[in-house]
């Protein structure tokens, strides 16, 4: 039987994903996500104790570029897709501080 994950958890995932959810969506996702997670749990059947995780499909290393300046976009190009901008900056609602 498909599991469900409770609605409170679905809402928390929504917040972490920055997706506003309607009550109907919360109900649907709570059922569907549980069902899919139950499939994911199938991997627990496998013993992977001495297996290295495989993050890349091909094993490449040391792909490095020279520190030589190249072309940038013009500011007009950079701002051209922005939903809101002023003369030279992307515009967002007021907030405080930098992320770092």
């Amino acid at each position: 039987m498909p599991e469900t994950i409770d609605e409170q958890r679905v809402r928390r995932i929504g917040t972490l994903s920055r997706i506003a959810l309607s009550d109907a969506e919360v109900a649907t996702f709570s059922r569907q996500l549980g069902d899919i997670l139950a499939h994911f749990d199938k991997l627990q059947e496998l013993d992977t104790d001495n297996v290295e995780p495989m993050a890349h499909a091909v094993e490449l290393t040391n792909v490095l570029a020279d520190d030589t300046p190249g072309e940038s976009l013009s500011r007009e190009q950079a701002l051209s897709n922005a939903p809101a901008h002023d003369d030279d900056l992307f515009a967002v609602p007021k907030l405080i501080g930098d992320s770092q």
Partner: protein
Amino acid sequence: MSDDVIITPIIGLEIHVELATATKMFCRCANRFGDEPNTHVCPVCLGLPGALPVMNAAAVELAMTVALALDCTVPDFTKWDRKGYYYPDLPKNYQISQYDLPLGARGRLAVPVTGDDGVVTTKTVRVKRAHLEEDAGKNIHDRGAGTGVDLNRAGVPLLEIVSEPDMNGVAELLAYARAMQRLVRWLGASEANMQMGQMRFEPNINLNIESGGRTYKTPIVEVKNLNSFRALERTCAFEIQRQTAEWRKDPEGFSLETLGKQNRGYDDAGEKTVFQREKEEAHDYRYFPDPDLVPVTISDDWRETVGGTIGELPLARRQRFCDAYGLAPAEADALTQDAATGDLLDAAVATGAEPKRCVNLLLGRGAAMANERDCAIGALGVTGVALGALAQMIDAGEVNATAGEKIFAALADGDADSPRQIAERDGLLAVRDSGQLAAWVDAAIAANPQAVADATGDGKKQKKAFGFLMGQVMQKSRGAAQPSEVQKLLSEKLS
């Protein structure tokens, strides 16, 4: 009651240093501060759909240089991870960083700390890790109702250096921060200019308190994004005071066990820290290996090549200057604030000049000019060969000290002639022609009978009058007479 209370601050520091590469970490946009907003941006650093990062080799090497200079273990294998959080100055809403395999780990930095008594001791601060990551852009708040975002800084390579909580007071903390600034500049890894945000601090502070046979630990407070040494100093001084006071009010409740870690922000105007509430999911960064970037493997050869560029580090050089050149600790300190100044001294000494004589020039006229120009003494433009030649001329009595300073200034002003050519050209060579010297001495004696009378008497004015006559002779020689010769001749004539 507090007689038996021993309070020890426990301070760790995260330092963010922007690396001095020509281009950003993952694209070839210029890494440059202060230009018009959003002019050094491209699909990669804007995080446009479909754009992919390619690692800047210079960023990796500069980070390795710093890690090796900090005695860190630089591993054979390192990789890049994504750190997820949403903020408008972070275009992809994840930051490319290093999570479990940083470029450097388990290092240390020896730091000279000047105590209240003026005695300098060396404190070793352990470095937990040093990892490479990309900087975010800048949010600009002084534009009307909203916030503006400038992404010129987005993707600039950033080295995060995390110390162990080894510092036990504000003096040690500041000394460590300054030593780190000196080190990264020394290595050419960063300009570490605080005003430009090229070096930023995040201290974490708590107190270890021994009282009544018990040990108390106050909550660890982390303060983000400090942009000056002053803010760092005020923050820590304030926190030590605040935590002490809080603990005294409630020794059981105000504890690490009960309250855990806290975030506080620095209030610049009030010079204090204020509590910051955090969202529950704030630290759920969902790190995972970045599939767009491949790992970097570091061979012994590569490590040695990069390590080979490091050369002598500030503290070692300081010690050598004291031991080999016989400098006072304060002199050695002043000459090891940057690499170029010490390099200049070494180059001058290598020409056969007396170290002490070179140091006098560097810390005299040199320091004054460097101060005026806001640059290092070593960056004034005087070469080691010229400095060495000048010092040797002074030692040989070919020019006197005053003329030496003039010649040094001319060299620092870009005079292309050699010290000897300058001395000859400007008539600064010491006059040793005894006939000429005698004539100047005679003229000075003839013109100043009162001074002669005072100088030959044994009254209080004797010394002063002799000095006055010396000055008169020097003036007539336009500075070119060798003072020791003048003194000798004048004494003879007056006796």
